[in-house]
């Protein structure tokens, strides 16, 4: 009887019979070469599809792909996969012998991947084949009986077919790139949801339609349950869990749904959070989702020296504009900021715009997806997809960082993003114009021509006078909160000689002090006659207030403004360069003949806040910067009708929690 059925099956599938009885052609015997070829065919557009008979079952794969496409229509590999399906011959696996071969093949494969070869071989092989036939509930005795019994149940037959092929594919997927593995995890989650749906239907419809509907539901339930369990086990394998640990993974039958979802989320996080080791690279793109809500598209590589390179790919378009010039400009800007892209522990990072040649030289799985960028010739502000040809470096860097998934941190009210978290601390994502110059070490080279004046000052040892000299040309005044008391008198400038300034250098920037008021050097500059024209910024005490205390406050506050002035200036022509200051400065200026160099060290430790840096190097890992992510997702949301942002964590008001900068 068994032999008869077996013969009938073989007669029905002559091509398959040949393939299964010839070990070299058995589609379930997987070699590394098979895996490599299929991975390429699966994800690599440049590799032509293999001509030989494919390993996939059209039906099983169509099913798998259809689920995936419904859920993730943008997955990169699916179109290619569907095209491939059209050329497939059906492959079947339905006899005891076939499944024994499957058992051997998969066991061999799994064993080759494991450290405890024998133990895992038995564990997985038995378990998988057990699933083919009887699902989770079968006992070893039942399994043994099944192995020696004919398969005469039609539903089971279909499940076996699907499951065995799925297993074979899953085994291959173990070597798939991150994106593909990720899709398996997504598929598992999807199948879990589907299982629950079918379960509901099963319970209600089986009562009414016990024959047709019930059988259909039962079949799908079985299929989904097995898929979930197998995929979950595969997830466990991917993270090098021990056999015992895998055996402890929640089961769809015994554990609560939340436990399974939790393990899947953890597994997904573990996949996405795999730390980069030197020489390794990850492509980060939006098909893996985005912890911040902004779609990232880049490739990050950890170099052998431990530094990180963030590679971006831009597809520029625009008419009447010099695209190569903008590309060069972007590269120059990225180069300029290199010394200032530091992590919280001093790690280095560089942004890099890939050229066509560099892209071509990269392995397929290290090529980041392109970012479309429209270029305009006009002077308008950029966004990550829209650049003016003369964009400033601060803008270019800000927009480049959006492509790594970082969100805006400035007040989003104008755009309707009223729930955005807005740190008080300066950040490249909140105010690139002011943050950028403060994050770079700069050197200003000045012409210091006059021997008796400029050179005389800097050859001398009056440090207060030197400081005063490089703080010229910009107005200094107290904050608006002092407006009631203080103002700059532009109507009565004072003309002062160098000698007069020298005489009061010990108390600079104080100009004059009386019982009721105090004046500072608010605005002063050098005239052509080498005298100083000074506009005093005068603060008067308020009526009935403690004047002495007020004057002390005015002095303290103005001194802060004076010391904090960032635009140090030259007495004559100047050029500015960006240069990493390697050693702590003993003096912020250096005179070399007629050239005076003024050093302006960066005020900020890094162009990137600590959590921004961590977010970039972590790719799409959902657990590396949880506080940052929880706040970042609010960047493009609006308040509800009641004026609230329900669910927005209160900690987003803390700069330290959000961007990692102490308040």
């Amino acid at each position, binding site marked *: 009887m068994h032999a008869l059925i077996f013969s009938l099956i073989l007669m029905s599938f002559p091509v398959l019979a040949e393939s299964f009885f010839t070990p070299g052609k058995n589609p379930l015997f997987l070699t590394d070469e098979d895996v490599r070829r299929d991975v390429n065919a699966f994800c690599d557009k440049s590799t032509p599809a293999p001509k030989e008979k494919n390993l996939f079952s059209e039906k099983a794969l169509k099913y798998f792909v259809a689920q995936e496409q419904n859920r993730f229509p943008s997955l990169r590999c699916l179109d290619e996969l569907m095209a491939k399906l059209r050329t497939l011959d059906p492959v079947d696996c339905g006899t005891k012998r076939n499944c024994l071969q499957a058992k051997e093949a998969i066991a061999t494969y799994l064993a080759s991947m494991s450290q405890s070869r024998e133990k895992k071989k038995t564990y997985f092989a038995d378990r998988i084949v057990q699933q083919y036939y009887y699902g989770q509930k079968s006992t070893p005795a039942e399994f043994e009986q099944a192995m020696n019994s004919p398969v005469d149940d039609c539903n089971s037959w279909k499940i076996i077919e699907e499951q065995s092929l799925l297993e074979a594919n899953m085994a291959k997927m173990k070597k798939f790139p991150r994106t593909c593995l990720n899709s398996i995890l997504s598929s598992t989650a999807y199948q879990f949801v589907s299982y629950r749906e079918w379960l509901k239907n099963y319970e209600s419809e089986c009562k009414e339609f016990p024959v047709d509907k019930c059988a259909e539901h039962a079949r799908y339930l079985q299929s989904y349950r097995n898929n979930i369990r197998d995929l979950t086990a595969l997830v466990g394998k991917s993270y090098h869990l021990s056999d015992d640990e895998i055996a402890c993974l929640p089961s769809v039958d015994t554990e609560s749904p939340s436990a399974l979802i939790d393990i899947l989320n953890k597994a997904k996080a573990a996949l996405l959070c795999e730390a980069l080791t030197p020489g390794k690279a990850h492509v980060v793109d939006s098909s893996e989702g985005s912890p911040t809500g902004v779609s990232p598209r880049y490739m990050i590589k950890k170099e052998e020296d431990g530094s990180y390179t963030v590679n971006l790919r831009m597809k520029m378009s625009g008419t009447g504009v010099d695209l190569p010039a903008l590309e060069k400009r972007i590269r120059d800007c990225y180069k300029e900021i290199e010394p200032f892209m530091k992590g919280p522990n001093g790690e280095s990072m560089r942004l890099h715009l890939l050229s066509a040649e560099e892209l071509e030289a990269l392995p397929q799985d290290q090529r980041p997806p392109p970012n479309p960028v429209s270029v305009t010739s006009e002077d308008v*502000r*950029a966004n990550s997809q829209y650049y003016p040809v003369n964009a400033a470096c601060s803008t270019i860097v800000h927009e480049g960082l959006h492509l790594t998934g970082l969100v805006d941190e400035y007040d989003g009210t104008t755009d309707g993003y009223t729930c955005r978290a807005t740190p008080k601390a300066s950040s490249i994502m909140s105010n690139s114009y002011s943050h950028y110059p403060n994050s770079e070490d700069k050197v200003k080279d000045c012409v210091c021509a006059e021997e008796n004046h400029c050179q005389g000052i800097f050859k001398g040892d009056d440090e207060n006078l030197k400081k005063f000299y490089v703080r010229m040309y*910009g107005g200094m005044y107290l904050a608006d909160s002092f407006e009631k008391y203080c103002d700059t008198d532009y109507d009565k400038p004072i003309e002062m000689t160098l000698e007069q300034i020298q005489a009061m250098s010990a108390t600079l920037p104080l100009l004059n002090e009386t019982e009721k008021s105090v004046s500072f050097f608010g605005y002063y500059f050098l005239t052509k006659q080498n005298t100083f*024209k000074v506009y005093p910024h005068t603060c008067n005490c308020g009526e009935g207030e403690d004047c002495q205390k007020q004057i002390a406050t005015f002095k303290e506050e103005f001194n802060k403004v004076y010391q904090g002035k960032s635009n140090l200036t030259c007495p004559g022509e100047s050029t500015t360069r960006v240069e990493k200051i390697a050693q702590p400065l003993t003096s912020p200026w250096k005179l070399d003949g007629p050239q005076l160099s003024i050093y302006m060290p960066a005020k900020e430790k890094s162009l990137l806040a600590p959590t921004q840096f961590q977010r970039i190097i972590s790719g799409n890992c959902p657990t590396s910067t949880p506080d940052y992510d929880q706040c970042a997702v609010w960047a493009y949301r609006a308040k509800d009708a009641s004026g609230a942002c329900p669910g927005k964590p209160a900690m987003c008001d803390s700069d330290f929690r959000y961007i990692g900068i102490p308040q």
Partner: protein
Amino acid sequence: MKIFTFLSLFTFSLHAQVIRYVNTGPGFIPEATISVSEKSVTLKRNINFLEQDNLTLGSYSLKDRESSKDVIKKFQHVDRLVNETEKVLKASGQSHHKLAPKQLHGPRYEVGSIRVYPGSREYDDLDAAFKGMLREEWILQDGVKVDLKAHELSTLKGGSVVRKIPFFKEGACDSEKPFAQCEIKGQGVLSLQ
């Protein structure tokens, strides 16, 4: 009914076309607003974009309405176009805003309360009409004017200079390639080439 029609027409004839350009992003937000009514044509801006040789910011009036009538007509036309399109969109439960491609930040035009983003059908027309208006001759009424040679920043009120203060590019502006940005307190940002 006749009274209603009359009132509608009357209201329409008094309706001022107000188009605002705004370019959101990190830090300073450039804006410019042009209003056209029967009585006046005005411009208010906080950045000298498109005209980096015109170092003024503030509120302006159009110098000669008659010689600018063609440009004004285009401006009014596009204003109506956007309003009419919005009505059609609203009838089908849509709006310019809803249809706009999602962007993190960037430029847009606001025609009254209607926001038109790049990629919208009317954006290019709006952009051309708005910039056409900007290129006309404007007289600064209230605002500031910088004279780099004289190192002076003048404050104007009602078209007359009421105050002059020293202004040095070296100290007042952040020099960043390819141009310097000078923040003028209470007025906006001057962009210098």
